[in-house]
């Protein structure tokens, strides 16, 4: 007794898929479609990118700052030495300045992280970079041997003198008891103007770098960088979160986030960031849970926009 071999082809079966196609046939060139698709889409991408691409403004660096506004650079370096800059008083994660963190009622979220990225502005932004010079300034020794009280006295005196000097120009500061501060800030200014401070602060000896924290914090402590942001409407109180430089459209989907920063009680609150984030979390939860919230879930019935979209369906219903 012989057994017929089992077919592995669907063509031999007698189901609907095995029957020959009885409809019309048309030639189709998959290769042509692929080439046209890639070429047309490629040209569209390149063309639209050339016309509508976002602005590529040159980076603001410590070098460009020191060259454009040397007086502001020296005043900021003095504040970093004296521990009176924005970074020095920021609190966690950079330092443990008392009462610096933002709180949500009794909850101090900022302090939960701890001081994970410790920054001593005098050492990290001024003294350590100067020590990388082939001939480090002798003023470093005088600074490191002095007490904290002496540091504060020198930097306060020099900051006051800079503030009173014509155009805040360090060259026009009258003689006084400033210790090594003018020599240190002057050497740091020269280093920045030559362009050697940027790589020293950012790379810290490594060839590749993705950590620009130190440079950006130093830049942010001055008035030059925030001034540029202000002129381009990029600060928080100018809806800056949703703006791009120039007239290029920005992140308009962040309108609600930005809007909260413009109104009270957020606007003048020292805890504005944490309050805005908390409010957005609550609003996002409300949106996510719409189907479960009585009243809110009835809104489509009360505002029947869907009846307008599907008006033909509802007309014949």
């Amino acid at each position, binding site marked *: 007794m012989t057994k017929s071999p089992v077919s592995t082809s669907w063509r031999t079966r007698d189901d609907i898929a095995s029957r020959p196609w009885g409809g019309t046939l048309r030639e189709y060139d998959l290769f042509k479609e692929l080439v046209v698709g890639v070429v047309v889409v490629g040209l569209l991408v390149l063309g639209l990118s050339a016309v509508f691409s976002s*602005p590529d*403004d040159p980076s603001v660096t410590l070098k460009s700052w020191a060259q454009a506004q040397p007086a502001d650079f020296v005043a900021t370096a003095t504040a970093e030495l004296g521990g009176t800059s924005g970074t020095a008083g920021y609190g966690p994660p950079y330092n443990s300045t008392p009462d610096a963190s933002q709180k949500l009622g009794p909850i101090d979220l900022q302090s939960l992280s701890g001081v994970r990225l410790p920054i001593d502005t005098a050492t990290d932004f001024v003294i350590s970079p100067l020590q990388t010079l082939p001939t480090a300034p002798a003023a470093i020794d005088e600074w490191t041997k002095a007490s904290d009280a002496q540091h504060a006295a020198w930097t306060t005196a020099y900051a006051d003198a800079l503030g009173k000097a014509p155009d805040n120009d360090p060259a026009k500061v009258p003689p006084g008891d400033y210790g090594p501060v003018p020599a240190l800030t002057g050497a740091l200014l020269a280093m920045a103007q030559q362009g050697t401070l940027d790589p020293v602060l950012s790379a810290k000896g490594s060839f590749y770098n993705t950590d620009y924290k130190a440079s950006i914090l130093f830049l942010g402590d001055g008035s030059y960088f925030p*001034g*540029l942001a*202000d*002129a*381009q*409407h990029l600060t928080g109180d*100018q*809806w800056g979160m*949703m*703006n*791009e*430089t*120039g*007239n*290029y*459209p*920005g992140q*308009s989907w962040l*309108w609600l986030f930005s809007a909260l920063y*413009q*109104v009270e009680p957020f606007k003048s609150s020292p805890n504005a960031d944490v309050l805005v984030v908390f409010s957005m979390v609550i609003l996002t939860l409300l949106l996510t849970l719409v189907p479960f919230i009585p009243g809110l879930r009835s809104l489509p019935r009360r505002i029947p*926009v869907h009846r*307008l*979209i599907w008006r*033909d369906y509802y007309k014949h219903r």
Partner: protein
Amino acid sequence: MLGIQQTDAGMPDPGIYFQWGDFLIQFGNLVVIATMVVLFILALVIPFPGRRSRK
């Protein structure tokens, strides 16, 4: 009150901004948002394509 702000800080193209009280919007963002609103309204009023031939 509508006010058009143009700044000059020595930087290229500071952009055009419109302000009504606390509300400040950049020209590019205004164009994008207005376009989205117009497209939404058009989507509401323009009939679905091919609907008439459907029985």
